[in-house]
């Protein structure tokens, strides 16, 4: 009866896009083999088919558990994730003996491990979609999440060096061969708490203020929480030696604060505090040294990577040379020398891919990120409750900030920091955390786009009004009288 007039779920569009994305990944894998093996093996599609079947399983789950979720999120993320796995496999092939490249096992090497991590991440995302039926229920655990988040942030800084330091950054927990990056999960926990806290406090933060130079500034005592987060982010900067994570936490908080209060003054205060803190750390590194030295050195490398191209500037200069070799169109998948770039599996994956797919390819990947972020913000705009708005806006912004920090670092726009590239870099923590982020956005976008339930059949006679109007409009029996 009213079936034809239902709000479209757009799940079929999602399936088509997903199949397209998997086709792209398969095309990439074929091109890699054509360049590296000089022939395309008959089973080049196997890794793609395996990862594709994971994504299609997630798609089927979304059909049942979040039928109105945004149709773009899953395919776009699947493309990035799939290309990441394919590129890591390509790096494995480069490391393998040329004679054995043709029958390199699917689950071997870094690429194979990433394939397994993808499965784990999708299971985590599916679990979130199954167990969190309404994103508002997350706010009930806000304080638990805050404590968890702070513990996860502080833990690597507090642990002794041999359990927490990799490549000079104390961001890890190393247990029995496994390395976990707790900061990736901390950002989700802290963000949920920020959203909850600011929903409750935003009135006092946005109403009580003094006007200076045409901009409303908050009262001194309301600055408390933002100063606390600023201090935490500085602790991260100094003791974990990681500018990126520190920028991420602080940016996340300032952004949710801005979204909650609509006050530009928060952005100004945030930027001033951050640049002031970074500048202070830099000058302290120059004069005092101690824990500030590594930050000082990183800035020095950033300013002049070719000053010491075989020493401190090695990573960055190799990355820039790789990007330069790629040029506009790249050397073609599998035809470059990405293994020349150090840490190409993790931090520098964007530079490694850039050499082979060129500026055109990288721009396309950045646009895909942009579209994911746009869909997240859109979910925030459309969802009805304030907590959901803040959470979706914050999650999308965090993803964007992380991409900015690492891509900016690799391309020498900002000082390089050890962030992972979401969905591309090798690493289970990052992959699982970012898929959880996407699952949360799917949940919120489902709530945002779901037509209100409980519509009586008679009010369906005006489908456009019914679709556009909020919940209450259609629940009222008196609507029928008209």
């Amino acid at each position, binding site marked *: 009866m009213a079936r034809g007039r239902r709000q*479209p779920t*757009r799940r079929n*569009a999602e399936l088509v*896009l997903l199949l*397209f994305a998997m*086709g*792209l990944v398969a*095309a990439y894998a*074929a*091109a890699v083999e*054509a*360049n590296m093996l*000089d*022939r395309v093996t008959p089973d080049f599609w196997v890794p793609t088919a395996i990862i594709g079947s994971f994504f299609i399983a997630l798609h089927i789950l979304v059909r049942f558990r979040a039928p109105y979720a945004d*149709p*773009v999120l899953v*395919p*776009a993320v699947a493309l990035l994730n799939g290309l990441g796995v394919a590129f890591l496999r390509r790096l494995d092939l480069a490391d393998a003996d040329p004679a054995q490249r043709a029958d390199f096992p699917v689950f071997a090497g870094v690429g194979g491990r990433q394939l397994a991590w993808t499965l784990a991440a999708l299971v985590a995302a599916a679990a979130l979609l199954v167990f969190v039926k309404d994103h508002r229920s997350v706010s009930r655990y806000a304080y638990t999440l805050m404590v968890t988040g702070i513990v996860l942030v502080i833990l690597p800084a507090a642990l002794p060096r041999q359990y927490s330091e990799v490549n000079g950054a104390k961001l890890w927990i190393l247990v029995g061969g496994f390395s976990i990056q707790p900061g990736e999960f901390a950002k989700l926990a802290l963000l949920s708490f920020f959203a909850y806290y600011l929903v409750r406090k935003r009135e006092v933060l946005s109403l009580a203020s003094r006007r200076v130079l045409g901009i409303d500034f908050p009262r001194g005592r309301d600055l408390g929480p933002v100063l606390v987060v600023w201090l935490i982010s500085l602790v991260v900067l100094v003791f974990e030696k990681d500018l990126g994570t520190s920028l991420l936490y602080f940016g996340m908080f300032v952004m949710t604060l801005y*979204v*909650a*209060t609509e006050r530009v003054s928060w952005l100004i205060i945030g930027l001033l505090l951050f640049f002031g803190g970074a500048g202070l750390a830099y000058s302290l590194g120059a004069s005092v040294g101690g824990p500030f030295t590594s930050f000082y050195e990183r800035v020095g490398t950033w300013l002049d990577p070719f000053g010491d191209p075989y020493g401190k500037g090695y990573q960055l200069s190799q990355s820039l040379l790789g990007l330069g070799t790629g040029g506009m*169109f*790249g050397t*073609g*998948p599998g*035809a470059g020398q990405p293994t020349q770039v150090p840490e190409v599996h993790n931090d520098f994956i964007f530079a490694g891919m850039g050499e082979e*797919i*060129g500026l*055109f390819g990288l721009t*396309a*990947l950045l646009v*895909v990120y942009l*579209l994911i972020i*746009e*869909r997240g*913000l859109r979910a*925030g*705009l*459309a969802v*009805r*409750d304030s907590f959901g*708005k803040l959470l979706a*806006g914050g999650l999308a912004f965090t993803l964007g900030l992380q991409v900015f920090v690492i891509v900016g670092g690799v391309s020498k726009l900002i000082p390089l920091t050890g962030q992972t590239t979401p969905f591309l870099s090798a690493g289970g923590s990052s992959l699982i955390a970012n898929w959880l982020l996407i699952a949360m956005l799917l949940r919120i976008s489902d709530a*945002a*786009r779901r037509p209100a339930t409980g519509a009586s059949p008679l009010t369906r006679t*005006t489908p*456009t*009004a019914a679709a*556009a*109007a*909020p*919940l*209450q*409009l259609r*629940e*009222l029996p*008196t*609507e029928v*009288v*008209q």
Partner: protein
Amino acid sequence: MPELVLTVARFGFLVLLWIFVFTVVGVIRRDLFAGSRASRLVAAPRGIGGAAGTRPAKVKRGRAAHQLLVTAGALAGTRITLGEAMITIGRAEDSTLVITDDYASARHARLVPRGGQWFVEDLGSTNGTYLDRAKVTGPTPVPLGVPIRIGRTSVELRP
């Protein structure tokens, strides 16, 4: 592998990548019209804007509300003539309808006209606002003669 195939693979992949991007943009574009319930990112009074365009056609002439009548509570019998201005209800002195009721909040609820239809909206009151027996959780259109309950007070729209 012939050079030609490799070149086709190299550029073909990039072209496919961009086709994917534009396909996604196409899906998003179609989507804009399907779910155009966009409001501001900050939680603002929702629903009113989206509903405004569709309401006038549905309100019949001559049945528009012209008065607000208090039907129960301390102020029973009070009438307020409705204009184009918003009506605020609460214990606060500057409310349009000041009710002295222990169960009412200082700024309890408001009535807003949009396109000939009045909407009631709860302003985050402690004990809630009820339209007939349904709790008001967002801007809700108020039909004529249906009581809005705030604490011990009831008000109705009258023609």
